[in-house]
């Protein structure tokens, strides 16, 4: 009995009889199941590693009794809690103990997921066909015709057939061992004890998920004495819930988890941080000719136009030059073909408001974007649009400088439509002088560091974008 506390201090502070007696009604099967778990823990020498998860229901106070690590879970969630414990310390032996309302009703999703996952935990499922703690209501395992507090005329078809959990669990891939046992006589108790030990031993060996359903007596709510209740389980429950092994497969140990890695250099590498700063080309000169402190840009097109990538490169370029930069994407519901626009800010010291409702610069990849956002550009601002798809630009504020550049046509001529956003960046550079060309090109090269073969094409796209603006002969001062 060493696995039981020597004093049940948590049971009403261990006062009087409660220090050594359970809270269960006379004849209840839970105590027997507790004893079998305690004996298995002792025989397997795993007391220090064991964590018992107490459920909600009559066995909510399992933690009064077993001298192991104890966690009490919310109704039905014991298997989820067990998963949390198991992955927190894979060396722990986690036993989820649940009744029929807990496991087969409110906790169905959690038991199914944990079984499907096959994670090495042990689930002891005590099925007594009734809700005990709440006072004898219908359980998912209540037999047809059985009268309970919430089926006073007997369980009818409207309440569904009783749920056979062991069979349900056994047909899943995850579990390695599923058995249904009972407690009504010496032979069944002997089998139950062995099954519980095996289910825990399989976890000790790291084999996988093991599930033992224990048919148990609730004399109180069956309104029977213990002998009658034992007989009732044998005569009435067993035909509905056949005893025996439902699944027993031999598998290799499930997983061997390494201790979590806290190597600082590895973490830095994993998150893609680098120690070498991007070279600066602007000499600390903020492009104040566009705005003294904070420049707002909007890039707009259809999904797939590359507006977001170009926006990201502009923000990155700003940060590389020692300024602040932000980028907010806004997508339509589709990832391709929907509307896609990006708000970008480039600020001398700090971007205050990152939205760009009235941008200084607009890059529009199609006519709807130009029509929608063109009128919002600030007076004196710059609008670049793709003249390969916009034949007739709308009338904008006369103070807005308008550049029609065939982004798409240039990209196609270069061999890939994908680089039209880089053509636009080149055009942006030439038209706005936001940053020196090398600033953009460096940002492009760094973004493509794992796709180096793409760099020459992108560089060419950028240059052709610049040239297209210069060719217009409309360079701002």
């Amino acid at each position, binding site marked *: 009995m060493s696995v039981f506390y020597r*004093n049940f201090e948590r049971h009403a502070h261990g006062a009087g009889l409660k220090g050594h007696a359970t809270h269960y009604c006379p004849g209840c099967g839970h105590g027997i199941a507790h004893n079998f778990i305690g004996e298995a823990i002792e025989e397997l020498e795993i007391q220090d590693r064991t964590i018992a998860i107490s459920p909600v229901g009559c066995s909510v106070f399992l933690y009064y009794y077993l001298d192991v690590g104890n*966690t009490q879970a919310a109704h039905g969630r014991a298997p989820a809690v067990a998963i949390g414990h198991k992955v927190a310390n894979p060396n722990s032996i986690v036993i989820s103990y649940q009744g029929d309302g807990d496991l087969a009703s409110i906790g169905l999703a959690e038991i199914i997921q944990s079984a499907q996952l096959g994670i090495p935990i042990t689930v002891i499922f005590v099925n007594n066909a009734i809700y005990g703690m709440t006072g004898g209501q219908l359980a998912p395992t209540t037999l047809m015709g059985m009268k309970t507090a919430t089926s006073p005329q007997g369980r009818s078809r409207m309440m569904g057939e009783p749920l056979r959990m062991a069979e349900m669990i056994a047909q899943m891939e995850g579990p390695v061992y599923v058995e249904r046992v009972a407690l009504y006589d010496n032979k069944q108790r002997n089998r139950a004890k062995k099954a519980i030990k095996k289910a825990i031993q399989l976890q000790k060996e790291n084999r996988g998920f093991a599930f033992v359903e224990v048919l148990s007596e609730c004399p109180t709510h069956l309104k029977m004495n213990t002998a009658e209740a034992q007989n009732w389980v044998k005569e009435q429950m067993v035909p509905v819930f056949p005893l025996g092994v439902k699944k027993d497969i031999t598998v290799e140990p499930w997983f061997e988890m390494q201790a979590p890695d*806290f190597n600082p250099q590895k973490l830095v590498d994993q998150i893609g941080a*680098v120690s070498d700063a991007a070279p600066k080309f602007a000499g600390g000169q903020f492009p104040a000719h566009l705005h003294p402190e904070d420049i707002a840009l909007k890039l707009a097109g259809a999904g797939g136009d590359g507006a977001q990538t170009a926006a990201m490169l502009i923000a990155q370029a700003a940060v590389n030059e020692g300024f602040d930069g932000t980028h907010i994407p806004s997508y339509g519901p589709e990832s391709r073909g929907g509307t896609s626009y990006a708000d970008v800010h480039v600020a001398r010291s700090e971007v205050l*408001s990152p939205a760009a409702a009235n941008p200084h610069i607009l890059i529009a990849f199609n006519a709807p974007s130009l029509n929608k956002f063109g009128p919002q550009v600030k007076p004196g601002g710059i609008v670049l649009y793709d003249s390969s798809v916009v034949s007739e630009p709308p009338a904008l504020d006369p103070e807005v400088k308008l550049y029609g550049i065939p982004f798409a046509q240039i990209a196609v001529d270069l061999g890939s439509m994908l680089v039209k956003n880089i053509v636009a960046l080149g055009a942006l550079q030439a038209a706005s002088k936001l940053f020196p060309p090398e600033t953009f090109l460096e940002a492009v090269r760094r973004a493509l560091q794992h796709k180096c073969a793409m760099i020459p094409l992108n560089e060419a796209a950028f240059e052709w974008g610049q040239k297209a603006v210069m060719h217009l002969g409309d360079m701002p001062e």
Partner: protein
Amino acid sequence: MLQTRERPKPVVLPAYCKGCGRCVSACPQHCITLGTEINPESGLIPVEIDLEKCNGCGLCFAACPEPYGLTAYDPLMDLDESYLKFPDEDSSTAPVPQEISGETLPLPPVEPLMIKGTYAAAIGALLAGCRHFFGYPITPSTEGAELMAKLLPNLNGVFVQAVSEVATVNMMYGCGGAGMPCMTFTSSPGFSLMLEGVSYMIGAEVPGVFINIMRGGPGLGNIGPEQADIKLACRGLGHGNTHAIVLTPDSPQEMLDLTMLAFELTFKYRNPVVLLGDGYLGQITGKVKLPERMIKPGIPSWGVYGDDMHRRNLICSIQLSEPDLEIHNLHLNEKYQRIIESEQRADCFHCDDADTLIIAANTPARMAKGAVQVLRDRGVKAGLFRPITLWPFPIDILAPLLPKLRQIVIVEASNGQLEDELRLALSHAEIIDVPPISHVRHFGGVLPQQQEIIDRVLETIDTEVTS
């Protein structure tokens, strides 16, 4: 030499026997009979055992549901003692739990990252020592979870996609209860589903970090940015007497910094911490500097870790006795009070001489910051008071600013949930002399814009001048 070992025979301890009679039918020798005398201590009728025919088969032990109902006969035993006593003995054989301390490790110097808010929060969690993630995908929080799914396996961490948010929070309850830093990313409807578990975590004093990238509601609402869950996070964390520190970042940098802070606070107070972002904040990319140090967590003394050192521990939110539960609630209240006194945080932008104070959090605070700058350029003494903790509301930082104010404008992407927090905080602080409060509110995924904030401030000033 032949050794004989006698098998133990049962002795019934009458006070612990509930007289169920399972042992009666279990005994093949018919040694045990249902009793006839009521035990004065238990009020029940224990069985009676006649050991004369007993061959020590032990089947009665296996049939007895009471751990101390039947005990092995020992000739030295004082059978007059009706129940066992261990007067000087500890109830558990486990050692007294000790903390296994963590450490902080220097991080190599690196260049700032350009990353989106959800990524920044995920990286903040990794730097804070989190190697366990549980979650259920929900827009617009998924990218944070996706980055964790990508990185954690490479760091020997664990990513579990739970069957639901309900399962998620209970996995956190288990993992956090083991003493390990763990987290989730979620968004409004998912956060609603987690609240039962959050209440359990608060009751059982389990740490865990919840990053809620809020979206438009109620119901399925939409995936646009809204501050729709301020009320839930500050006033509605499930059933019972619950509070948690609520952090509100306004940039990718703060998504990282405050996530790291969240892990520190969640262990400091053994209480969940909620970080509220909004859909924009999740998506916005900005410059993020990494800290100089990272955390390697230990195991706290109270964790149910599954080792000998922590065997004695219990994670539990049930307290059956009313006085015990009241004591536990008083303990929680004392903790909440300590948090209120120590953890108020706010960022003040041009507040010192302000007579017009804009109050905003998350992304709306960015629009408000832009508005303050424009108003200052126009000669209006505007300032931005940005709560970084919504619970506790930083009233102690706000209070000294109030006497100078002519007006307060609350800017929020919700139906007044931030304003409610302000008004509650003013009320609790018994501050009666408050300047007129007006607001700019949007919801449904629409954010307040800089220009309308400016307009609202000027409109109020104009009204004042006219009247």
